[in-house]
């Protein structure tokens, strides 16, 4: 086989996370509320 002398310097693979992952993160963010009482933080995740 012929030798390849080139490097694919500029080939960029555009990787992105799955839609489910993004959706999970956004839903988690919407569900989470954090309340600071005194020195403690209370996390509440709404279903």
């Amino acid at each position, binding site marked *: 086989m012929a030798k390849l*002398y*080139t490097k694919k310097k500029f080939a960029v693979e555009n990787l992105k996370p799955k839609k489910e992952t993004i959706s999970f993160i956004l839903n988690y963010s919407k569900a989470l509320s954090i309340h600071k009482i005194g020195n403690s933080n209370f996390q509440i995740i709404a279903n």
Partner: protein
Amino acid sequence: MANLVFPDAILVKNYISGDESALTSLIERHQSKIYGFIYSKVNDRDLSDDIFQDTFIKVINTLKTKSYNEEGKFLPWVMRIAHNLVVDHYRKSNKMPFNRETEEYSIFNYMSDNAPTIESKMITDQVEADLTRLLDELPEDQKEVLIMRMYQDLSFKEISELTGVSINTALGRMRYAVINLRKIIEKNQIILTN
């Protein structure tokens, strides 16, 4: 989305004030870089998704507890979290089992070094540099097609669209580029090998 024009700092501020769409914009803006960074370290799509998810859970928790100190460095901060999670993953998954060397077992029976030596790396660099110089000898249209095909990994269809010529013309230019390169190499008695 209007959010896309705001700088990160404003989006972070809006998110902390309760604007959930700001987080969507931040993720949309930086997902490729962060995910690409994680994937480059772990080489596994599912694992990258997990680490990406954990990274943003930490980001969300920090932002919602209002303990994030905005210094205009949102992306480097998220990348640092992702990096730490990758390191944690490798620590947990015990990727380096321990074997003590005995008379029957020697690590050197199993290990071989396939990495290029400094010499072969220098030769490769030299060959690539020589080739780049040879490309400058080609007519501009042929050089353009060859660079797009071999260095940028574009298809002939993409090349034809970008240069505004037919696929057959692009193929022809590639063919003449290779023929001309061979002629230059023969004429100057250059040896490209490693």
